[in-house]
């Protein structure tokens, strides 16, 4: 009796999950397995034959100067994550209670995140225009005679991308911080005030520690989200000038679909996976700590 009930339950379970599982199998699991195989081949698009090359692609990656450049650029790109979070925290604290027009302001800060896409990339491209763009116009206006060349120079291009990314992520980080702030019991903040803490002290010594689990979560998920992204960079600079904005994820795309080095691209994409894996493990370890704060 019980056994047949269990069997029926299992059948029903698969009936419900089945349709979705087919898609996940087709569009996630099989491609992932196939990509793992490609990593060990010299597969090129349109090439007559494909050979098994063992670890050649991984060796090539280790010796590829461009891989090193891409890795370095990726780390510069990742700088945007903590900076954006810091600004978002300040905005979230300010917007949590003590302002008028809360809802409207939240929506305005969140706007860039929802309008993601190449459109904003092109707007920023013009804003950053070195000789006559509004940003450098402003900088000259406040007395900086030699403002940076931004996207047109190898020294500044990655930082210009960082600024766009900070702007883009700020609203998202703010919303998550707001959700965390609303969980903080009113009494704790009240108690600190009664004890004579100044607003700044309350923020530093009461609120900031209490949202530290959120900070950790945002940091790790932000790093993962950023490391996967290449759309904005592809749209604005295609990795240039030189290779100054070629990040790892863009490097993979270029190898696969510009040079058709698909085996090599597969190898780099698994390197990217390894980095994401490290962040995920960190997050998992952190999660254990933040359950009982």
């Amino acid at each position, binding site marked *: 009796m019980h056994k047949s009930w269990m069997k029926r339950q299992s059948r*029903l379970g698969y009936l419900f999950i089945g349709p979705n599982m087919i*898609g996940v199998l087709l569009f996630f699991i099989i491609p*992932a397995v196939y990509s793992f195989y490609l990593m060990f081949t010299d597969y090129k698009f349109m090439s007559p034959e494909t050979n098994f090359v063992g670890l050649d692609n991984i060796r090539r990656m280790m010796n590829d100067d461009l891989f090193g450049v891409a890795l370095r650029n990726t780390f510069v790109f990742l700088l945007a994550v903590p900076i954006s979070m810091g600004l978002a925290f300040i905005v979230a604290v300010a917007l949590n209670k003590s302002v008028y027009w809360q809802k409207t302001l939240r929506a305005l800060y969140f706007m*860039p995140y929802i309008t993601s896409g190449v*459109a904003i990339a092109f707007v920023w491209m*013009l804003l950053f225009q070195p000789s006559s763009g509004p940003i450098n116009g402003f900088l000259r206006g406040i007395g900086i005679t030699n403002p940076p060349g931004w996207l047109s120079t190898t020294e500044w291009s990655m930082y210009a991308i960082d600024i766009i990314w900070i702007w883009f992520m700020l609203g998202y980080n703010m919303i998550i911080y707001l959700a965390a702030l609303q969980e903080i019991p009113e009494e704790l903040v009240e108690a600190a005030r009664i004890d004579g803490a100044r607003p700044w002290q309350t923020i530093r010594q009461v609120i900031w520690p209490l949202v530290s689990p959120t900070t950790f979560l945002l940091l790790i*998920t932000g790093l993962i989200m950023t490391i996967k992204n290449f759309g904005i960079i592809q749209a604005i600079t295609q990795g240039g000038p030189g290779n100054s904005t070629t990040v790892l994820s863009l490097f993979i795309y270029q190898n696969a679909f510009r040079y058709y080095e698909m085996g090599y691209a597969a190898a780099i994409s698994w390197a990217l996976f390894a980095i994401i894996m490290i962040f995920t493990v960190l997050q998992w370890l952190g999660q254990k700590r933040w359950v009982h704060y």
Partner: protein
Amino acid sequence: MTQIRKIILTLLMSGFALLMIMPFIWMISTSFKSPADVFTYPIQWIPSSLNWEHHIKVWSGANTFATYYLNSLKISLISTIGAVFLSAFAAYGFARIQFKGRETLFLIYLSMMMVPPQVLFVPKFLMFEWVGIYNTHWALILPGMFTIFGVFMLRQFFLSVPSEISEAAFIDGAGHLRIFFRLILPLAKPALATLAIIDFSWHWNDYENALVFLIDKDLYTVPLGLQNFILENNVDYNGMMAAATAGIIPMIIVFLVGQHYIIQGVAGSAVKG
């Protein structure tokens, strides 16, 4: 005293918010300027005369935003409807039915979220070419109907529905299918709406997949169309901003309509992990 502080803080935060949306304001204003006024400094926020010609250029000609809109709308709508329905089904299975291998399966789902899209691009490209859907809208629609995030989000919601509700229905003789359609789905309307809006915005803004899987210009979605317009008109700054405006407006409308759901969905998904 606190009143004054509140006003000062409001003004301060409004100023910063204005700075945040300034790129959008500049974009719209530039799209109406004459070419000579694009880079005048101090910035001309209100164009001296309204030039509609740039917007007309974007919406007419060989490849227009009308085509891109239709393509994007088709892909986003079908993908989203499919994704919401398929996710709801799977999420119910994971949340409400005890069966063998459930935990393992869920773990596999979890691990797939870590795989970066770059890992999947090349195999998907080869697969789509093999079945003959490369460079068709199906290459975006079919994978778009499966979202692991959606399964997670809805599973979370279904878990929060008290089990007494379905137990009472079980006693009345209802099966899982009936409970799913008659009880859980109606209860989950806000969660379904949240997923639908977030998912729609992802599909609408998706540039990377379109870049990899579409070639023909008449198949282009809005992000690709925008890129194409800018490649072909790279000195026409006013036109570029008119095109960017066309690319952004639909999402701003969706956002204004579904603001509550979007913000709630984003906050809920991250805080709950």
